Every structure is written in structure tokens, then in C-alpha cells.
């Protein structure tokens, strides 16, 4: 019997969904763009991309999407980048806004400044294979993490790549780099939780 290929969705309400889908496809995953709550039922895992979290929330407040997503992230593997990380957090500041609270961290929006303060850093992380390039765009900052959450990469003293069980989140954009390691890590998490 052919092994089950996990069905991975990329939330495509707005933002960098195309590039995420491309990266996942390059790694052999089957990625679908998700624009309606009904699509979640067919998925094994979900990527929530970067974009504007306020716009995401507007769309989610329509036709029961928020509730369906809330249920999904509390039971399946999810990878959130930037705005996606904000959406998964327990508490959001600058300003306060609604979040799913499935990842026990606090996040401050636009914490490093505006677009002119966006930057690309290359540093050692906990991922094997040498330094990792990290693209920060109007990035948020993780200001608190609960004990037991794994910190896989840092920028100065702040965590920028964290894992809590089947939830993976980054404040940078691995989809904008050629390095596949972060997406591969997520696919490994998906594989281990669906088999």
C-alpha cells in the first residue's frame, strides 16, 4: 500500500501563501490553498503565512471561519510565520488583538520598527546543517514563552523559531529563503503526528 501523503493546507486569506505552497511542493508535499472554512476538514496540517494579521482576522470573523480554525489548530499540526505566529499566540500586544491562544507565547507586533528596519540575518540555530538565513519583514517579537516550549533559533535574546509539540512558529519568513530546513522540520512534525 502506498504511504499516506499528508494533505497540507496553506491559509490563503492574504499574504505570502504562494511562496509557502511553492516551498512545500519543492519538498514533495501536497499543498492546497485554503480560502473557506469547509476546506479545513480535508486537511492533516496547516501553514498560516505572513501577511497582515488584522486582515486575516477580518476574513476569519466571517461565516464561522474563526471557530473552525480554532478547532483545527487545537488538534492538528500547524506552522505559523510572522502574522501566522501572531495568530497562534496566547497574547498579542501593540495593539492588543484577538488570537487563537494555542501557542503559549506573547507577541508584540511590528516590534523592530517599520519596513526600513526589516533585515536579513544569518546565524547558528538549533537546526543541524550550519547557519540559517532569516528574513525579517516588519517582524513581531516574542516577548514571553512558557516553560517547556522549545526555542530553536534566537535573534539577540528573543526567540524567533519555537516549537510546542505539533505547533511550529517563526517570526521570520523561511519561505523567502532557499534553505528548506524549516519547512522540512514542519513536514517531519506532520509525518510523525499523522503516522
Amino acid at each position, binding site marked *: 500500500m502506498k504511504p499516506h501523503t499528508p494533505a497540507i493546507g496553506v491559509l490563503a486569506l492574504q499574504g505570502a501563501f504562494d511562496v509557502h505552497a511553492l516551498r512545500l511542493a519543492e519538498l514533495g508535499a501536497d499543498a492546497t490553498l485554503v480560502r473557506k472554512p469547509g476546506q479545513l476538514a480535508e486537511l492533516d496540517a496547516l501553514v498560516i503565512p505572513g501577511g497582515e494579521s488584522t486582515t486575516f482576522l477580518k476574513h476569519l470573523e466571517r461565516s464561522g471561519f474563526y471557530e473552525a480554525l480554532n478547532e483545527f489548530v487545537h488538534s492538528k499540526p500547524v506552522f505559523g510565520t510572522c502574522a501566522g505566529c501572531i495568530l497562534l499566540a496566547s497574547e498579542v500586544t501593540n495593539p492588543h488583538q484577538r488570537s487563537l491562544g494555542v501557542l503559549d507565547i506573547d507577541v508584540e507586533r511590528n516590534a523592530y520598527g517599520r*519596513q526600513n528596519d526589516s533585515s536579513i540575518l544569518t546565524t547558528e540555530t538549533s537546526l543541524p546543517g550550519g547557519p540559517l538565513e532569516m528574513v525579517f*519583514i516588519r517582524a513581531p517579537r516574542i516577548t514571553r514563552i512558557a516553560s517547556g516550549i522549545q526555542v530553536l533559533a534566537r535573534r539577540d535574546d528573543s526567540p524567533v523559531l519555537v516549537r510546542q509539540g505539533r505547533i511550529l512558529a517563526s517570526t521570520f519568513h523561511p519561505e523567502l529563503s532557499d534553505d528548506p530546513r524549516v519547512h522540512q522540520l514542519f513536514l517531519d512534525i506532520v509525518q510523525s503526528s499523522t503516522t
Partner: protein
Amino acid sequence: MAENNGFGQHHDSSTGLRLKTGLAEMLKGGVIMDVMNVEQARIAEEAGAVAVMALERVPAMIRAEGGVARMASPRLIKEIMAVCTIPVMAKARIGHFAEAQILQSLGVDFIDESEVLTPADEQHHIDKHAFTTPFVCGAKNLGEALRRISEGAAMIRTKGEPGTGDVVHAVTHMRTIVREIKALTVLREDELYAAAKNLQAPYELVRMVAKAGKLPVPNFSAGGIATPADASLMMQLGAETIFVGSGIFMKEGSTPLDIEKNAAERNEAISRARAIVLATLHYDDPKIVAEASEAVIGSMKGLAAAAIEEKNLMQTRGW
């Protein structure tokens, strides 16, 4: 990094360009709205806009009132930046690099080198590689798009005919760009040199487009988009994000809706903004676009682009 301005440094400007197009990626699938004051900016963000364009007068007013249209006042731009959590864009005149330097120093997230304002230079567009702030530029065809990209634009938008509420030229420009891209993909490698000559665009960029079948930067649409159906049309024709200028906050001619004192007009603006955001996301689902259209109260009266004299067109500014 902030101190890296990329002046003449090819190594640094490639990092810079990735950050610039990176922000453009984050805006995909959304709506960027023109706003003239803090209250409009609040309505735009609340309706789900992915960014706002801060300006003194929307294109419909510039068209009706005439005069020289310049960069907005730094005071207005700062006020709008202070109330928005989403990116704030602002316009500089074509070729007016000093206005662009001011906008960069204010910290705006994107600069639109725009034909909506009165051009400041009849020969040269701004050297956009010299800035850390990303630029968006208008184009009517592929050659123009590639010339802007070679100057450092991180995002291209159709020009359309701004301030009209008539989508016809945005459609023409989008169809032209898409058709010219497709035409490049079927050429032989040795035919690309002549193609570059005909497009009046750098060979390397022409070759990149021929290979990828798309522009090397995101391709958005602007110029006359006024309704949810217009947004759906442009997205189906290949736009990746929608700019709405006069379509949300204008009543007729050069009169904006009174969102401060008139509750009905405020609700009208909110209904238009929300509906366009919804229709842009579900552009390929006519049922939802219909639902969005139904929720709209009123619309911009508009001006048929065909009735505008050639010399009054904005799209012919820039080259």
C-alpha cells in the same frame, strides 16, 4: 540593515531588493486603499485593508481641481502612520527623488512613484536602487514594467486611468502585460535579444521573464477600480492585489463622503471598503462577489475614461 542604503553596492542591494519584494509578497491577495485623513485610515484598516496610501487628495479630486499635485504633507503622513498598524504608503512625483528621500526619512513602508501626481522630471524616473524603502511604479505594458524594475521597483501596478471609477484602462494594461509575458515564453533563446530591443527593456530582465513566465516582482492592479466586481475582474485577469483610489471615499466629482459628521455617508464608505476586501479574496466565487456587491451602499459616480481628452490622461505620464 537600516544603515545599509544600497548606494552603488550591488552586493547589498540584492539583500535590499529581497526585503523590498518580501514586503510586496506580504500584501498579496489584499486591497490597498487611498486615504486622505486619520479617520479614513481607521476605516480602511478596520475594513481589512492590507495597507493604506496616504495622500492629500485622491485622484478624482486632483482631476477635478487641477493645479500641481505633489507629495502629501509630512504632517499628514505622520498622523496616518501613528494610527495604522498596517503598512503606510505615500506617493512621490515621477523623478522627484527629493520627495522620495523625505518619504524614506519619515519611515513610510512603500513609496509610489506615481503618475497621479504632476511629474517632476520629463526624462528620468527615480533611481530606486538608491533607497532602502521599496517602490511601486505604474506600467501600461511589459516594456514599461521592466524599465521600472531595472530602476529598482519592487512592485508593479497597472496604471489604468486613476480617479475615473472606469476600469477599462486597467483591464487594457493588465491584458497587455500578461499577453506580452506569454509571448516571450514561446520565443527561442536567440530571439530574446530582438525582443529586448523591441520592448526597450534590459535583456537580462527579458530573459528572466521569458523563463519564469511572470514578472520578477509582484504584479498588482490600480487605476479606476471602484466596485467589488471590478476587483474580481482584475484578479481574474492576473492581478495579485488591488489598489482602490477614489472608489471608497468619494461621492461625486471632487466631493468626498462626509465620514465625520454624516452617519449614512460614513456607513456607505465602510460598506464599500468591506465589500471590495471580500470580493478580492473570493474573486473567483461569483456568489460571494454578488453578496459583496449587494452589501454596498451607493457607489462613486465616476467619469467615463473615453470622455477624457488625451492631454488630460494621467496614464501617459512616465515612459
